[in-house]
């Protein structure tokens, strides 16, 4: 075996330089880096679309975007942020961190790992280019319900194929993560000793292999309805447009947990480090994560309470949804209990993690409110729903990503970020985020509908506040870009272990930056 070993790694050590290094790489760190930069690029594109939406909504009336283009902006903003920014960012974290945290030399399928990444720019190209084809991009909302999505032109087809490709990428990525975690842990790293980030990603990957193929199936039916005369979503042929919603949300609801479980994992790494205490209730954390994942598969129809379903269905989906608050509450309790009597410090990762807990709980509670059928019938398709899911996706998923980037930047680059600027980034994000989205609760309760470029005069003040917040939030993210680039280029050299409370393998067994090949000999975990 020794010869084989030399052969494989001998090549790697003379990896191609320049662009070809990135194109052909089989190294989990290179691939993780590409995932992160790709997702940040898509985050800026999706953010640009959000700025367009908020600029149009700054005042009542039609100023900047005609309604057709406005609808394309909202649709592509959602698709790009969900599939292009948040999901790939978490896969980037998994690529970097899972092998380091379980003591593996690389991902289980290193070449396929490269393909999972390089499918993303293809899908991103199809999505973004759809703005420039005749008829423009898809405009039926990111959930692309028929009949709006069975109408529409070339842009909708480009979106359908982009979703297919993103799905293929996600499936390959998640199979890779499952196999890596199950088969490549260092000796002594039993399942119940794994860092919480690894656990949350294992469970997320199971959700992905469960629901991504269903998404592929439903967009395939959409495609054949559009071009081959089938009647899946056409009542005249015996089909049902509501069926699309059921199948879509069978994917779509687990999808929101796909975007939040790894966030829970990141926060569960950071809180113990900066509280200098082990995570409170480790095993209950694992079981809570698994319970959330299982429950997430039986709550999908709470997205469609107003679409028409039997009362018994509404009751089932309402109670099942509210049940998710229990394991989620366990997690929030455990994070709080971890901080209790800890010797805490508040570096940027910890600030974002605490900000995450605070704001995610608000988003979680508004979720429970939306789950109550009579209330949901009132707030369905209003800005209340927008506010709810931005509290879980922006101050939830995105804040945890920021926390994770600050936490692991020294490990990735060998340099420290600028702590002062990092704290500015946090406080500005915190302020502008709440300025943007908190007022949207009021707009929604007052009845302002989502996805409409114009509104009644009574909504004017809150919309202006929200837009100002959004512009501030957008600009703040350029500060983040600056902090990351200056950390890579000219950051102070990081100490070998910048966080003295960190206990996971990447901090205890590897230098900063982590070498190109790590754990060729697995560490022994006691």
């Amino acid at each position, binding site marked *: 075996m020794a010869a084989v070993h030399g052969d494989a790694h001998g090549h790697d050590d003379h990896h191609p330089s320049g662009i070809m290094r990135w*194109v052909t790489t089989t190294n989990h760190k290179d691939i993780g880096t590409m995932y992160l930069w790709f997702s940040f690029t898509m985050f800026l594109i999706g953010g640009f679309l959000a700025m367009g939406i908020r600029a149009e909504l700054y005042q009542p009336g039609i100023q900047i975007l005609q309604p057709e283009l406005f609808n394309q902006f909202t649709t592509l903003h959602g698709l790009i942020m969900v599939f292009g920014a948040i999901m790939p960012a978490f896969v980037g974290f998994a690529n970097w961190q899972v092998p380091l945290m379980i003591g593996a030399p690389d991902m289980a399928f290193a070449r396929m790992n490269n393909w999972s990444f390089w499918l993303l720019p293809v899908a991103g190209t*199809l999505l973004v280019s759809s703005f420039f084809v005749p008829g423009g991009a898809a405009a039926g909302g990111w959930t692309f319900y028929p009949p709006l999505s069975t109408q529409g032109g070339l842009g909708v087809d480009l979106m359908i194929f982009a979703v297919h490709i993103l799905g293929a990428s996600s499936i390959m990525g998640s199979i890779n993560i499952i196999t890596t975690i199950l088969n490549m842990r260092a000796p002594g790293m039993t399942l119940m000793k794994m860092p919480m980030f690894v656990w949350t990603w294992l469970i997320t990957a199971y959700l992905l292999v469960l629901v991504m193929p*269903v998404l592929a199936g439903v967009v395939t039916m959409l495609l054949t309805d559009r071009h081959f005369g089938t009647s899946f979503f056409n*009542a005249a042929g015996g089909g049902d447009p509501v069926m699309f919603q059921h199948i879509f949300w069978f994917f779509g609801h687990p999808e929101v947990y796909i975007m939040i479980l790894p966030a829970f994992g990141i926060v569960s790494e950071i809180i113990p480090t900066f509280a200098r205490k082990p995570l409170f209730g480790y095993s209950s954390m694992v079981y809570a994560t698994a319970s959330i994942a299982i429950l997430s598969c039986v709550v999908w129809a709470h997205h469609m309470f107003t679409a028409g379903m039997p009362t018994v269905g509404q009751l089932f989906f309402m109670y099942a949804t509210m049940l998710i608050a229990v394991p989620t509450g366990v997690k929030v309790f455990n994070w709080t209990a971890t901080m209790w009597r800890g010797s805490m410090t508040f570096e940027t990762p910890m600030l974002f993690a605490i900000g995450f807990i605070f704001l995610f709980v608000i988003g979680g509670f508004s979720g429970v409110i939306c789950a109550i059928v009579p209330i949901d019938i009132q707030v369905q398709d209003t800005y209340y729903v927008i506010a709810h899911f931005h509290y879980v996706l922006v101050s939830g998923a995105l804040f945890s990503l920021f926390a994770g980037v600050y936490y692991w930047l020294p490990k990735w680059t060998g340099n420290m970020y600028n702590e002062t600027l990092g704290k500015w980034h946090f406080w500005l994000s915190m302020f502008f985020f709440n300025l943007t989205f908190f007022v949207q609760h009021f707009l929604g309760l007052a009845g302002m509908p989502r996805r409409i470029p114009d509104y009644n005069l009574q909504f004017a003040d809150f919309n202006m506040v929200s837009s100002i917040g959004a512009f501030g939030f957008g600009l703040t993210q350029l500060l983040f870009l600056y902090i990351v680039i200056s950390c890579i280029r000219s950051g102070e050299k990081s100490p070998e272990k910048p966080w003295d409370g960190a206990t996971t393998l990447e901090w205890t067994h590897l230098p900063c930056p982590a070498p190109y090949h790590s754990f060729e000999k697995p560490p022994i975990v006691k």
Partner: protein
Amino acid sequence: MSQESGHYYVPAPSMYPIIGSTAVLFMGSGAALTMNKIELGYGLLGIGFAILIYMLFGWFGTVARESESGKYGEQVDLSFRWGMGWFIFTEVMFFCAFFGALFYMRNLSIPWLIDESTVLGNEFWSSYDGTWPTAGPGVHEAFTPMGAWGLPAFNTLLLLTSGVTVTIAHWRLKENRRDGLKLWLLATIALGALFIGCQAYEYVHAYNDLNLKMTTGAYGSTFFMLTGFHGFHVTIGTIMLIVIYFRSAAGHFTPEHHFGFEGVAWYWHFVDVVWLGLFIFVYLM
């Protein structure tokens, strides 16, 4: 954990993934253009497929060579098993979406259309009886549904037999009887090819004699979607069987170490099981 865990085979940098992505870019944009009847699309689609085939030959060829030169230890072998297992699980979920659509239409949405206690059943579709197989209330072309006991039953027999023959081929491989291995593999390939031929004949029959088309409402949609994707998977499976036949003929695989063979056999059993679901829920019931 095996003692080889420090020597897990990490392949050298490779061009095949980016070649594959290029293929997918051509195919995705080509398919979108083709479906909107833009001439350029056909060319892009063709180029995409050509690149994809080149990539598949190159990539799988590399894996086969690496495997035959003994680079894959036990731990890599186990990775392949996990990987293939979960891949097949995703395929099962893909079919679940279509079976779910069939179930939803037959048992929920079409009965709702004729439910006299609702506005729909009373006013919109009052002349519609809603019995399965149906093309829906708005499609008035008559059609004949596909019977179960002719060709489909024969197809069931073909696929079930092919499940047996591929297992016998596996036994011969483990006994290191190479002639038997190749013979039984050939038999499996022949059964698979015959199945595809029968399905093609059935489609012609459906279009020409039964007036059963993709445009035949709910029944036509689910019939062609489910049997079409299954037939596509049988075709992929048959190509995979042909590949391992040639690998067997070239002396690949040992009685102890042959996951390439087993992965294909797993896949073949998967298409077999899906067919049983199809035979029961699409043809019989």
